[in-house]
């Protein structure tokens, strides 16, 4: 079960008991209201829940494991020390968070963050995906996302000529990761 860090949220324990989110696979996760405010979706769901007086908010589009990771990140964001991080330190933080993730997992995580309306985390996931895609070949991108190439070889060649400069440098490195 994910719980928020005790440092920042001590004040909230008595006044505002944590909310409970239920994932698609039945996992129940606690999140403090102040942390949940980062998610516009949870706030909307909360408004509707309060009318029907149940304790648990179903987030049935998201599996427990992903939800847990997202709540963990949202907890980090509410910590004061996080806001004082410089640009490089933030970058390092997210690199560490996403270290060894496969690109489709990052995409999924980004979609979940988008669905829950947590813009900052959604942006970071998109940035991570971009970092993983850049300098990869077009074939690599097609393979990883299972995109079917429906151009004929001639069409593809013609298209490349429209922006020759983008296809010339041989600096691509498909590596092994992210598949």
């Amino acid at each position, binding site marked *: 079960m994910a719980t928020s860090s005790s440092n920042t949220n001590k004040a909230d324990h008595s006044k505002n008991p944590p909310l409970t989110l239920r994932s*698609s696979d039945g996992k129940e996760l606690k999140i403090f209201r102040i942390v949940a405010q980062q998610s516009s*979706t949870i706030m909307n769901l909360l408004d509707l829940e309060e009318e029907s007086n149940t304790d648990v908010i179903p987030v049935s*589009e998201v599996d427990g494991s992903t939800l847990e990771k997202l709540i963990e990140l949202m907890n980090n964001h509410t910590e004061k020390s996080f806001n004082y991080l410089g640009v490089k330190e933030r970058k390092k933080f997210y690199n560490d968070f996403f270290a060894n993730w496969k690109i489709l997992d990052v995409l999924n995580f980004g979609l979940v963050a988008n669905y829950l309306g947590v813009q900052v985390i959604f942006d970071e996931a998109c940035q991570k995906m971009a970092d993983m*895609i850049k300098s990869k070949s077009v074939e690599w*991108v097609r393979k990883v996302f*299972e995109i079917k*190439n429906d151009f004929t070889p001639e069409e593809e060649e013609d298209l490349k000529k429209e922006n020759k*400069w983008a296809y*010339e*440098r041989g600096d691509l490195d498909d590596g092994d990761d992210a598949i």
Partner: protein
Amino acid sequence: MYGIRHISSQLIPSQNKAASILSSSIGSSAASAYVGGIGLRRRSGELSRLLKMNCVMRSDVDFITNLPNNIIDNILGCLPLRDVVRTSILSREWRYKWASCPEIVFDFWFDQMFLGGHKLEPLVYQILKFHQGPLLRFALQVPDLKSSPDIDQWIHLLPNNTVQDLTLHVSRGETHKLTPCLFTFQHLRNLKLYNCLFDPPPGFKGFSKLENLQLQNVDLVPESFIKFIALCPALEKLRMIHCTSFDSLEITGPNLKSLEFHGILKFISFANCPVLSDVKLTFSSMDFKRGNGFSLDLVKSLSCLPALEDLHLQAYALEDLVEHGAPNPLPVSLTTLKNLHLSDMYFEKIDEASCAICFIRSSPNLQRLNITAFTFDVVDSVADFLRSQQSSESLSQLKTVKMQLFSGIEAEMEFVKYLLASATALEELAITPHASSIADGGESILNELKQYPRASPSAEIISWEKIRR
């Protein structure tokens, strides 16, 4: 493997894998309210109708192509331009997707890695003409960019009703006179200009959303620039490096938090800067100074800032304070100042040491002091002067002192001795030795400093290189 595949295994196997995460399978009539997130509302309605109609999905649909445009745009916006353009050959669906990429950036990376032998100008035209829809950020900062009518044409091609972030870096040749079209970009939040002429047209009402303005080597018309600043009430950060000289610079900034100025200004004043907390003023020359009012005027202006916490000045900007009672504290004080960095501190001039002490004494709540020395030739017997300084008022709030480029000459040592004897709450004194003046890495200096009497029993004296902040 989380998320998408997991969910789709619960649903009809042939379903669009991406669509599964968007489906409003919650089922109630309030489903559309549940599906929050950014821009999903319309799309989810459409998809849920498709699902309900049990329409046959393409079995070879991939993970990314059918995602909402705003998600794809967000990813494209994080990619270098070259990779953005390459997405056009992924598949037929992808051919025009990059036209709505929210950022177009021609930077050093682009120039070095991808431009090759191609000419820049046709490329910029081609890409700008291909682009459709909102553009949030445009940057033109390739090396060797020269002023030309093309630059104005490109600005004209940008959607002036969406651009929020604009960078124009003219690296070579004459200053580029900016087209008045730039001043129609009402949504600008970040503007960075290098080697341009910036002169808003008469009647310009200001950029109401501008938060960050960085000007380097920019020609300004002083009077109209002052008016311009006052017309940008959202401004939070202003940086002016090597721009036109100012006889008098009046800053109006109800939201201004940070100001950095490097160049020549003879007088500065602040009108309505209630949250300005970070000020850095460095002067490329002091030759303009006439009379002895400069330093005191500067301190008086700074003392008007109710939120000033961080200040960086060159020590010689304070030299005139000798005419106003230095080293005794001034009649005005900087009560909110917490962090002071004095750079180019010339220890071998009594005036500079004296004015530094005067300024420190006039900042009663100073907590952190950082001094970067500039030591050249011995001029005065500053050491004797410093020895004669009694710590009449203790520097009771001073917690940390950092001395950089420290040579260990007598004057510097006496200065530190004075601080150690006056700072009753000092926690740490960190020394970074000047590499070429000190042979032993500063050990002997540190040892000597540790012998000096300390007003604060808990003060630690350390070598800066050894600690990590």
